[in-house]
């Protein structure tokens, strides 16, 4: 898996280890497991990146900084949400820091850019980011993905709408970029496949300062339901104006979970989000994440959102990989097989991996934003169990 001289070093290390063990039957002395994490610590996703790092750190602390009795060293690098910088940092972690494993990224563009780099370097990578291609054309034998794809959320939202409001006419609105196009596209395709009706489809540029004209146009359409995709500050602005324009409570609003993120969006919009429905792989009220939610809350950071949970889960998967491979996760064929053979228990629930593309199979929850003790909380009202991305056959 590694470059020749690295393999040589490992052999020497293991040989030395064996010698030491024979010579003195002391406790196991293991070389630290170096994990490189690439996330966005500056730029538009800075807060999300901090959450991701926080989640991973919490898992490490809980594990006593050891996986399978091997000390763990975490090196975190900032990709500034830019693919070029992400690639540069990946090369540095691989070539200079010589990490054993890579994980991270928030921005799908960075994830896609990393795909070839980690594959060529044969670096086992736990790659996040949610573009559909990551589970399809951009899958790689060296990449495992313990997170969702956009399709999983878009298609389940359509299924839910069909469940609860069959025959509803749905209008969509989204930020006009790759993620937005995927979410809305998957929603529309699935919904129409189920016999539903899609009305007008609205697109706005990323970073729209005023959603007034959009909201007026939506209201004029008189839809039964609206499905939107906005993230970050766009989501905050949209929800606030959704309330200002008195559409809240009058038209059923559905979105992807990022639009109602527990950490990133809800605290900023308050009751403007009340009643909003979203499909997400993460929820603070999901039973599987109860322990994590409590631990996270104990650090004083309130209820966790997507990225703190994802960081934590990523750590859980890497820990399990280390345990199942006998402390040697860089023996990749063996580790990969061990992860395909049996699911991993994570804060996202039971997580099997699809052997075709290394993509996690996840429970997708339907959250409704409810008021709980005065705070807005994503509350699970339904769960689609073990959703599998269509993958390379899509």
């Amino acid at each position, binding site marked *: 898996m590694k*470059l020749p*001289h690295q393999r040589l070093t490992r052999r020497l290390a293991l040989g030395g280890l064996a010698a030491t063990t024979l010579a003195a039957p002391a406790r196991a002395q293991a070389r630290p497991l170096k994990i490189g994490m690439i996330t966005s*610590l*500056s730029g538009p996703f800075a807060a999300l990146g901090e959450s991701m790092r926080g989640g991973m750190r919490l898992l490490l602390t809980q594990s006593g900084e050891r996986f399978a009795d091997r000390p763990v060293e975490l090196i975190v*690098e*900032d990709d500034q949400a*830019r*693919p*070029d910088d992400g*690639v*540069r*940092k990946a*090369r*540095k972690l*691989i*070539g*200079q*820091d010589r990490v054993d494993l890579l994980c991270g990224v928030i921005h*799908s*563009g960075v994830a*896609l*850019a990393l*795909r*070839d*780099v980690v594959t*060529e370097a044969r670096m086992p990578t736990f790659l996040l980011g949610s*573009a559909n291609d990551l589970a399809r*054309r*951009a899958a790689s034998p060296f990449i495992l993905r313990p997170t969702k794809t956009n399709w999983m959320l878009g298609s389940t939202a359509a299924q839910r709408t069909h469940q609860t409001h069959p025959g509803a006419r749905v209008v969509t609105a989204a930020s006009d*970029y*790759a993620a937005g196009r995927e979410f809305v596209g998957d929603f529309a395709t699935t919904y129409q496949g189920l016999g539903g009706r899609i009305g007008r489809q609205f697109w706005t540029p990323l970073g729209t300062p005023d959603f007034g004209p959009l909201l007026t146009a939506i209201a004029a359409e008189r839809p039964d339901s609206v499905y939107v995709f906005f993230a970050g500050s766009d989501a905050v602005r949209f929800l606030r104006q959704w309330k200002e324009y008195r559409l809240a409570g009058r038209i059923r609003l559905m979105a992807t979970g990022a639009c109602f993120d527990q950490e990133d969006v809800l605290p900023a919009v308050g009751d403007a989000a009340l009643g909003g429905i979203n499909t997400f792989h993460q929820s603070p009220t999901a039973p599987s994440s109860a322990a994590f939610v409590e631990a996270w809350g104990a650090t004083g950071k309130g209820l966790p959102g997507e990225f703190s949970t994802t960081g934590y889960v990523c750590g859980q998967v890497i820990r399990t990989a280390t345990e199942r491979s006998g402390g040697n996760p860089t023996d990749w064929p063996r580790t990969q097989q061990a992860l395909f053979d049996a699911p991993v228990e994570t804060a996202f629930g039971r997580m099997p991996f699809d052997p075709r593309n290394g993509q996690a199979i996840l429970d997708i929850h339907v959250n409704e934003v409810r008021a709980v003790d005065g705070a807005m909380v994503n509350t699970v009202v339904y769960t689609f169990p073990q959703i599998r991305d269509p993958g390379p056959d899509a």
Partner: protein
Amino acid sequence: MIRVIAAAAVVALFADDYLLRFLAEILLFGVAVMSLDILIGFGGLMSLGHAALFGGAAYAAAIVARQWGGDLVLMLGTGMATGLVLAAVMGVVVLRSGQLFLLIMTLLLAQMLWEVAFHWRDVTGGADGLRGLPALSLGPWALSGARALFLVAVPLAVVAFLVARSFIAAPIGRALVGTREEPIRMTALGYSLFAVRFRAMMVAGAMAGAAGALLPFVNQYVGPQSVHWTLSATLVIMLVIGGIGSLWGGFIGSAVYLGIQTYLSAYTDRWQLLVGLVFVLTVLLLPNGVAGGVRRWRS
């Protein structure tokens, strides 16, 4: 020259992949900065659109490679042709106006190319860029990996330097400097300022294009950042640090900038602050850049 080749051979044999790729990147950027030096340092043409030539060629090469493979001759040819065409367009639009307009117009034209790269998803991959590039090859031999890339970048840099030097020493190069120093005099001697500057633009474009063609193979990826105006500004910063008007200073400047970016960003997120500091110090203490400082120290 022998020393350069010998040094390159030693490095190629003993350096690890990470260092080789890093050095290759320095060389490619160095060529781009050198071609910018022809415009700014010798022609007095302040361009903030050079990323369009460098990055535009990168995109062209990546698109062609995905279709027809990464043959080295095809890549260099595509890159140079793209650089020439883009430089010609830029030249025709920009070279008839005064200095301030030149700055703004090159910036605008380059940003127009960025818009195309960012929005034309079907061809350029949009915001996600292009990946899944085949390896470089030359005829039947594969040139994949960092070592091969380095061994291609070195002769490219050497040839580019010799070409640039030859251009500057030739009558056209002297005329270019003349148009910078005394444009009215040059007109009064019968030189067409446009004709002189346009030729310089074309040469700079072909040179930046050749280097740009290999850029996607450094990271097996090309994205809109490669044609963004901030890269144009970065090239200018590299030029100032290295030494305007020195040609070879371009390599120094790119090494300093990329070195700080790569090695310092491990310790602090504020590496750009250090680049800024180096830039300001260079302007204050070494007005002719590191190259100028070396020259002075030698004499």
